[in-house]
């Protein structure tokens, strides 16, 4: 179990509002995520889960809001932040190898003119080993399976040696073995004191994977320790009537029709 240190806040968001075509996608988000947790961002489709991550990283313009990473503005802390985008966000037919994609994670550190050399390739190879892909380092990325592509993206973020990681649906469209492997890697990172912020869509696994939760539907419905947030009332509030949940620990069993 991770140690919660209330004095150290990995991510702090104030008043974040994002709108798209005059429609609010995220409304007045206030959020503090402690360091050293595995945090899940959960909510229905269109709740703004991916948009939240993207606006934090400056990929989507926000109307207002302040983002602090470990107490300083994000813009000054880029090197401490790693990002694993959705696998579908790039064209995998790009002519390059798995190792080369992982090496890209080091481009920020290398600065404008320096090129990746033997040291960088070695680090990339180590990151591939961590995700169990070292044998496929020279494989064309177009020939990798979906799960393997996801692991390459994970390795690219790992090689950054960041303190806070944002992952956008890393478990989407991968098989059970890969999901297991990814979760194991994330847990190891958390145990090493890193903070992981993961957009997740599968409610069944939320309780087993995360120790901290944000329940999102345009606004923050609830946030805090997973056991306090993952409650039927909160879920109903976030998902409306469209929820059917099975959980054998508590008797949280109800069907969509029973919820008004």
């Amino acid at each position, binding site marked *: 179990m991770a140690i919660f240190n209330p004095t150290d806040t990995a991510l702090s968001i104030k008043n974040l509002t994002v709108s798209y075509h005059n429609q609010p996608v995220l409304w007045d988000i206030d959020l503090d995520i402690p360091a050293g947790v595995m945090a899940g961002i959960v909510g229905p489709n269109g709740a703004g889960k991916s948009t939240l991550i993207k606006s934090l990283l400056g990929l989507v313009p926000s109307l207002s809001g302040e983002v602090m990473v470990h107490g300083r503005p994000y813009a000054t802390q880029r090197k401490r932040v790693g990002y694993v*985008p959705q696998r579908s966000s790039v064209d995998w037919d790009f*002519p390059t190898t798995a190792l080369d994609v992982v090496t890209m994670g080091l*481009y920020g550190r*290398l600065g404008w003119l320096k090129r990746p050399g033997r040291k960088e390739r070695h680090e990339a190879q180590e990151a591939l080993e961590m995700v169990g892909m070292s044998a496929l380092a020279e494989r064309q990325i177009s020939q990798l399976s979906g799960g393997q592509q996801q692991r390459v993206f994970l390795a690219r973020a790992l090689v950054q040696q960041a303190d806070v990681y944002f992952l956008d649906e890393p478990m989407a469209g991968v098989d059970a073995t890969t999901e297991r492997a990814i979760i194991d890697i994330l847990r190891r990172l958390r145990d090493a004191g890193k903070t992981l912020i993961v957009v997740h869509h599968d409610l069944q696994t939320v309780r087993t994977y995360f120790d901290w939760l944000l329940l999102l539907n345009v606004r923050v419905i609830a946030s805090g320790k997973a056991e306090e947030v993952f409650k039927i009332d909160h879920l109903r509030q976030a998902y409306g009537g469209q929820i059917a949940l099975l959980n054998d620990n508590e008797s949280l069993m109800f069907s969509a029709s029973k919820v008004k």
Partner: protein
Amino acid sequence: MVWLELLSDYTFQNVVIGASLLGLISGPLGCFAVLRRQSLLGDAISHAALPGICLSFIITGSRDIGGIIIGSLITGSAAALIMLMLTRLSRLKTDAALGACLSIFFAVGIVLLTYIQSTNNASQGGLEAFLFGQAAATLRSDLWVMGSITLVTLLLLAVFWKQAKLVTFDAEYARTLGMPITVIEASLTAMVALAVVVGLQMVGVILMAAMIVAPAAAARQWSRHLGGMLTIAAGVGIVSGVSGATISTLSRGLATGPLIVLTATAIVLISLALAPGRGLLWGVIKHYRQKSALQKQQLLYALYKHSADPSCAPSTLGSRRMLNKLKQQGYLTRSPRGATPSDGGWGLTAQGQAEARRVIAAFEELAS
């Protein structure tokens, strides 16, 4: 003797050097355009160069290449910018915005062109050559300008290689690393405009897009790395430029630009068909190999499983050809004397039985 004469010909030298320079710049930059799914942007920029060419002529009163380059760069970039703005600000999709920009700018260009022709200015002669290019009119001084543009562009690419590569592959991730992606993307687009400008004299505004797309498309088939793709694309560009120019000169009178484009297209077709791994032919061969391997496994499996029960007829299993092939490979025997009507006398040899057991083991491992 013909070749020696040809090589010492001043015009031919100019055309070949010009065509090579064009291949050298359009190939590598085309790779970025194609990988960023902006191959048609080159088309828009090149069509939009025409009003620039005409405006520069109206202002300066001459066909000076410097003025023409500046003019075409301005209108070409304006078209690209308007296109990007249309897609950002309106609900128009990229293809519609691109089509609109391309045709409007080109129409303005044609109107200006006919206006200049109507003024009967003596020095305007051959301005319409920019539509399809007029390689033979290339001057030594033009080559210097083309060469410098090519050199500077390729140097810039070499220096900012990392940035160009990452922005092309995954722009959002590049931004999280702190790269100024707007600047890099704009520079890449500007470089495509420069490549277009280099090609105006050789192949003209209408066909220039082919020189952006074709070498890159051919190179993608043969390459496993971005660097390799750029090198091959440059090679394809140079080869098609030089051979197009040569064919045109030898045939006396066939247009150079279109011949260059046709040569490049031929290389694309060959690459699409034959390239190892990605080529169509390769795919067909692989398909038939897999099919035949599967048929063989099925036959061996069935013969092995049902050998104890001759009433389960192997004759229903499939083609006689495959049976004969397997016999040749030593997996099957045929004893005409013991032939029953149902099984045709086919039986597994010891080698065949071993192979069948291997197939079954592999199959069961896969299933578990």
